[in-house]
């Protein structure tokens, strides 16, 4: 647990129309190999913006994103992204949507199809491969979204409130599946960085919680969680951890 996979250094971000007002103010943290990091903070504090900067979907005003010791300037195949609202292309079938994750790979069309089908099967979606996303429930859509994100064997997975568009029961089921899949050794993802505003969710699945403050957004505190998986939401240690995060957030 010592090798740093992804590191952000002094990220500053502000919108073009008001450069003096900083949305993100000197954010720095590290994600280590095998680590599951949650970024938690009040609504509108710029969590999603920060995650998009990590993926280099948007450039920061200043600061660096460093992946395995090299500075990043553009999205890389090694770092993948799961969107809050799934971002599936409505005109492509679910299988084709997963294949989009391999658009940039130099493998044959046959191979892409085989890999995408395999990934859908792993997510329990093989029966809807040839349907369009509009035929699926929210939970299934997000499974397709996750399949697309990991089909290209990325090293780091960024997730932007992946369960917040789903109802409580669906979110719980998918969260459980995602955690056990990410902890298992048969997929390539080493580190996960997830943005959430749900404290229980963060405590349930993270090794480390980074608590953000608002206006401007800074890092308030980093908190290591050394609980074993699967975590019981009703255990005393769990509830203590939850209380502590709430305390940090409201302080």
């Amino acid at each position, binding site marked *: 647990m010592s090798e740093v996979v992804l590191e952000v250094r002094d990220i500053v971000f502000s919108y073009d129309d008001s450069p003096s007002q900083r949305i993100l103010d000197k954010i720095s943290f590290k994600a280590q190999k095998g680590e599951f990091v949650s970024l938690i903070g009040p609504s509108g504090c710029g969590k999603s913006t920060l995650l998009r900067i990590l*993926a280099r979907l948007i450039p920061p005003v200043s600061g660096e994103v460093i992946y395995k010791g090299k500075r990043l300037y553009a999205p890389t195949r090694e770092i993948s992204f799961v969107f809050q609202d799934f971002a599936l292309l409505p005109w492509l079938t679910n299988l084709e949507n997963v294949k*989009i994750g391999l658009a940039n790979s130099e493998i044959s069309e046959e191979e892409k199809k085989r890999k995408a089908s395999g990934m859908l099967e792993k997510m329990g979606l093989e029966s809807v491969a040839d349907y*369009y996303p509009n035929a699926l429930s929210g939970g299934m859509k997000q499974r397709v979204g996750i399949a697309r994100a990991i089909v290209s064997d990325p090293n780091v997975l960024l997730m932007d409130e992946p369960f917040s568009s789903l109802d409580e029961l669906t979110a719980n089921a998918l969260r459980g599946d995602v955690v056990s899949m990410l902890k298992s050794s048969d997929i390539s993802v080493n580190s996960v960085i997830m943005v959430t505003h749900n404290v229980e969710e963060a405590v349930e699945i993270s090794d480390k919680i980074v608590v953000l403050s608002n206006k401007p957004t800074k890092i308030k505190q980093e908190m290591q969680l050394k609980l074993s998986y699967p975590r019981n939401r009703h255990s005393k240690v769990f509830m203590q951890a939850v209380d502590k995060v709430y305390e940090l957030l409201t302080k």
Partner: protein
Amino acid sequence: MDFISFIALIVLDTTASWLRMFAALFLSILLSIAVGIYAATSRKAERIILPVVDIFQTLPILAFFPFVIYIFVFLLPGYIGINAAVIFLIVTSMAWNIIFGVYEAVKVLPNEFVELADLYDMSSWQRVRKIFIPAAMPRVVEQSVLSWSIGLFYLVTSEIFSIGNANYAVKYGIGVALAQLAFSGNYLYYAIGIAVFIAFVVATRFLFFRPLELHFTKYNRVSEESKKHFALHFGIAKAFNYLPKLVRAPAKRLRAISAFRRARHPAGASRNAGAHAALPREGIKNLKIKGLKKGLGGIAALVLAMLLLAVVLRYPVVVHYEYEALVSLAVSFARIWLAFAAILAIAFPVCVYLIFISKHRNSYLLFFQVIASIPATILLPIIVIALKGYALHSELTAFVIFFLSGIWYIIFSVIASSTSISGEIFEVKRLFGIKGKSAWKYIYSRALLPGLITGSVTAIAAEWNASIVAEYFTTTGISGTNVVSSVSVGIGKLLDVSLGSGNITLMIIALLNLTAMIIIVNTFLWKRLYRKVSNTYK
């Protein structure tokens, strides 16, 4: 002519044109309020009015202009007749979407309002005045802005058309004045005239429609704010942001129709409409399509019956006319679709560039919006002059006019529909590095397809509208009518020539063929295509 009197004259001419426009707008609003409220409050009326309005708004009514002129001049003394014809024509371009606006605004009123009226024992007239009209006014204003720009195209084209027909000349108007300037070789004044025209367009938007909008939307300012289509920083661009709406109107209609096809609820399930906010819309869609089918069947039957009757009565001339009309229609069809292909070949890459690649979309938009506010036919005189002397110059003129009449509709429709593409799709493209061929295959072509289809309907209708001047263009000189530009065969030319020779039978047959063809193409090509696309996209 010295500069001052030139400016005065051009301003007077434009004012004359604008008077026609305001008269037409006023009449359109009166008509729309009456018809729209009637359709929204009577089920029987609804079933007839909606499908008829839906068909009329996709017909290239300008092609009926020679016919309308003939009728009006026949009925009313010369100068009044021609102006009445122009105003009538503009009304037929303006009214349809205002009718739909009034209808929808009244239809979605909560049932409580009707109950309230019952409670206070209001008369029908009181209901109309106190409830329906105030409820409909914001939509009336919104739709009027669109209607104005459609009307401008009709106005200019009908004015340009009239200059070649000494018996039917409008005499005063910006279209007339500009054509005369161009043909007298006064290109500088011609350019200044176009600038004056644009100034009038901008001023009307700011000084007439903007205050009306503010007045009638003061109850729902919030939704007004949320209606920003693009981040338009420029005040002037704001004034023009009705243009994307213009092409969105038919899109809305197509959407409503396709949504109906998907809905499983039987028609009339929402009898108790007002009680549930979501239900009445469903009801609207149901009715629309059911009536539409009947309306289509009715019109087709009518066309057939009239043709048969005519054939029986006037055989063999009618058969010859029908042959002539079909050949002309086929040739014009080829010409218009060739120009349409050229439009797609240029507009589509431009749209992809503007939407997916350019970082200065808003500045380009401003440019396009100002350009698009000029009806293409106002450029006809200068295009004719510029192309004179080239081989096939009449064909070239027609092609250029068709091209310019249609291209803006495609660009604006695609850009307007692109605002509904979620921002995440742009991110998916970057994240997974989708470039080159795959980007065209998986993203561009698919994401822009709905806008492309709705834009195509309006673009092609605009081309057919332009055909009466693009295919056959005449001016009147001392020695009589000069044919300045004329293709060998074409439906626009056929209509013009039949007016000139007073052959009303031929004109009616040509119009029936044109109408039938437009309805067939819209029903079997565009509506089908749109339904197919929108079913998978939702």
